[in-house]
């Protein structure tokens, strides 16, 4: 088995897509010569040249605005923001332009672009470089939202994002870039379909991105104590595959949503509400949410760890759900 990193899988997806589709271009801060803040586009300038890989000024509004315009006029741009935290500077371009153009022009024109960025904790990036802002994206109709947790998904979801005719926000996790795994070449699950990462009959853990791995670690410990959890990796938050979640909860009767973003009005709030709407008659316990604290992320490594769900807390919350 050949192993590859999450970062390399992303680069492979960009490379494969650019080789097959000449309309794909990349733009962002330091994406060219430097190869991207997290090294995803390293070396790509040599193959594709400056016409297709563009370094931009330090202006998120320019990056996203340029991508929107380019997408409307025939290209398929991949815009990279170094940190998702900086999306605030491009929110008008993203929320009021990219997401709405197809709807405001009677479907005549779309915005086939991918906005790549990364979020999450784990590198002591402090309050302005560690956030998980997926709830904002999910709250905006018109945006696809993908959050891959594995090497294979990093590749396949990005490949697929580059064939969609509407804007995709593609959020990577800064803690996953060096993660190694097998890149399975065969086609993964379809876009918008969640994947069951572990089968179990006692309770359902719904998660995505890095927290999937925390859940998997917790599951090993829980299994030793006789609790078998089922872990669902949502893969994309829009589309949101509630069918897979509800089917699982209808078997286990217990559900817990594990996310790194803030608890209040976060992704876990949405998903738990939907579980209660769609699978109420199957529930044995209230749906629990385990998400980030409602605080700006601290810089101290210990405080940073404590501000988002830990493996220990996943274990203790799952036990609570099992009344153990």
């Amino acid at each position, binding site marked *: 088995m050949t192993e590859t990193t999450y970062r390399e899988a992303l680069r492979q997806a960009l490379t494969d897509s650019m*080789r*097959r589709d000449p309309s794909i271009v990349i733009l962002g801060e330091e994406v060219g010569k430097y190869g991207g803040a997290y090294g995803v586009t390293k070396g790509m300038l040599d193959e594709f040249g400056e016409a297709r890989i563009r370094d931009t000024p330090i202006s998120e509004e320019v990056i996203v605005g340029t991508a929107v315009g380019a997408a409307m006029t025939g290209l398929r741009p991949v815009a990279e923001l170094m940190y998702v935290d900086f999306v605030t500077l491009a929110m008008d371009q993203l929320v009021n332009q990219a997401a709405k153009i197809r709807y405001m022009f009677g479907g005549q024109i779309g915005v086939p672009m991918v906005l790549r960025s990364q979020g999450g904790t784990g590198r002591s990036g402090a309050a302005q470089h560690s956030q998980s802002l997926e709830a904002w994206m999910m709250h905006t109709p018109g945006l696809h939202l993908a959050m891959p947790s594995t090497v294979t998904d990093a590749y396949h979801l990005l490949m697929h994002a580059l*064939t969609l005719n509407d804007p995709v926000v593609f959020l990577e996790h800064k803690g996953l870039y060096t993660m190694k795994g097998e890149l399975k070449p065969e*086609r993964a699950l379809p876009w918008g379909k969640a994947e069951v990462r572990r089968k179990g009959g006692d309770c359902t853990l719904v998660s995505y991105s890095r927290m999937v791995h925390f859940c998997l670690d917790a599951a090993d410990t829980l299994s030793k104590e006789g609790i078998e959890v089922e872990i669902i990796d949502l893969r994309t938050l829009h589309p949101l595959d509630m069918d897979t979640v509800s089917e699982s909860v209808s078997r286990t009767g217990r559900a817990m949503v594990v996310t790194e973003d803030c608890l209040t009005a976060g992704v876990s709030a949405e998903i738990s509400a939907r579980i209660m709407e769609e699978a109420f008659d199957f529930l044995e*316990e209230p749906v629990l949410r385990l998400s980030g604290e409602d605080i700006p992320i601290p810089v101290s490594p210990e405080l940073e760890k404590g501000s988002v769900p830990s493996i220990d807390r996943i274990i203790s919350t799952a036990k609570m759900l099992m*009344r153990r």
Partner: protein
Amino acid sequence: MMEKTLTLPRLGETMEEGTVLAWSKISGEEYDRGDILLELETDKMVVEVPALEDGKILEILADEGAVVAIGEPIARVEVESSEAVAEADSVPETSPQSTPTSQKQPSTTTPSPSQEVDEEEELDLGGLFIKSSEVPERVRATPAARRIASKSGLSLNEIKGTGPLGRISGDDVRRSISRGVSDPTETKPEINEIEPTINETVLESDALNISYLRKGPSGKTPLVFLHGFGADLNSWRFNVSLLAKTREVWSLDLPGHGASWDDSMASPGFNPGVEELAENIAQFLMLAGIDRAHLIGHSMGGGIALSLASAHPERVASLGLLAPLGLGPEINHEFIRSFSTARDREKLVSALHRLFYHGSWVNAALVGPLEEQRKDPKRLQALSQIAGGLLQENHQRWQGRKMLEKLNMPVKVIWGRDDLVIPSDQVLGLPGTVGLHLFPETGHMPHVEQAMGVNRLIEELCAFE
């Protein structure tokens, strides 16, 4: 007719008294059921009190502005029935759901005996729609337990809850459903697959100079595969072996491709179009003794298969077209040109990437043989001549859509949604009898990228003979 006294109704849980704001009826006035009798102000709101039956005001006992306690008289009335002594004791602004039992705080635990007594008293005082004896006792049970109990016709009252505070869980209900009934859903029937005898693989060439690969047991109508432009019979490597388990499968090298090649094809006279190639194949099938076949063609091979089926419908049992030529004008002419002229490995690889959704398919096994063939300039020239026959300026030269519309045999059109050579939206507008199969995340080579799915479709297509 009988006379009775209206008393002040209870209009809310915290209400102890109310102020009469205005009477809508005066003494001696008759009213109908539903008419508003008076407006009351309580500590929470102003409400209108309707009549519950027809009647007549005899005397107003509480004038406007009077503060009256619950249950005290407010008027004397004349009604027909002998019941409903305090007929105005209704709750106009609160629905039946707002009975005291359901207004308990969600966090309350099992009600203490004293609370229950209070509730009963309140019910009597208020004279609400439900008599206290009819108030269902809310059993503590999870939603799952309620669903299972209701499905199996069990009453929750008969089940003992083992959960927190005596809550009945789904498992509690399951336990009380008759034990010993085994779960019939978990047994899977065993399938004994009989491995069919596979004939020897033969690579032969015949008088027409068409090479082919034949595999599988004879008996059923054979399957014949026709590859696309610039490819050879190896492009069906993921399909032939599996499908040859149950029937004879023929995979051909089209003229000018693979081993169906000789130097004369490099002459300017070799200029076959789709229809001419179709006639070549029809002739070959006749010589090979194949009276009737299921035809599967990819891209240019799809155009050939369609043309053949249209010219000789009696000889084609069914037709499977993968990303075929001939269903629309659009084609990626740049790809055709760069693919047919690519001499060196780099250009060839760059062109091959357009064929697949996943770049990993462009590997040494694919590139090597193609690169080898291209070392012969004559072969490249023949390829360019064939390409010239397929294109008219920047569009497809041959059109077979009208032919397809007239065919009577079963037809499936199979396409990759992300085909960058011939756009998959050319399937739109085909007759409803044609089966359309679009694979997501798939390029121009669905039989490679989606081999399992395509094989299944081909099996479906030819299952009938």
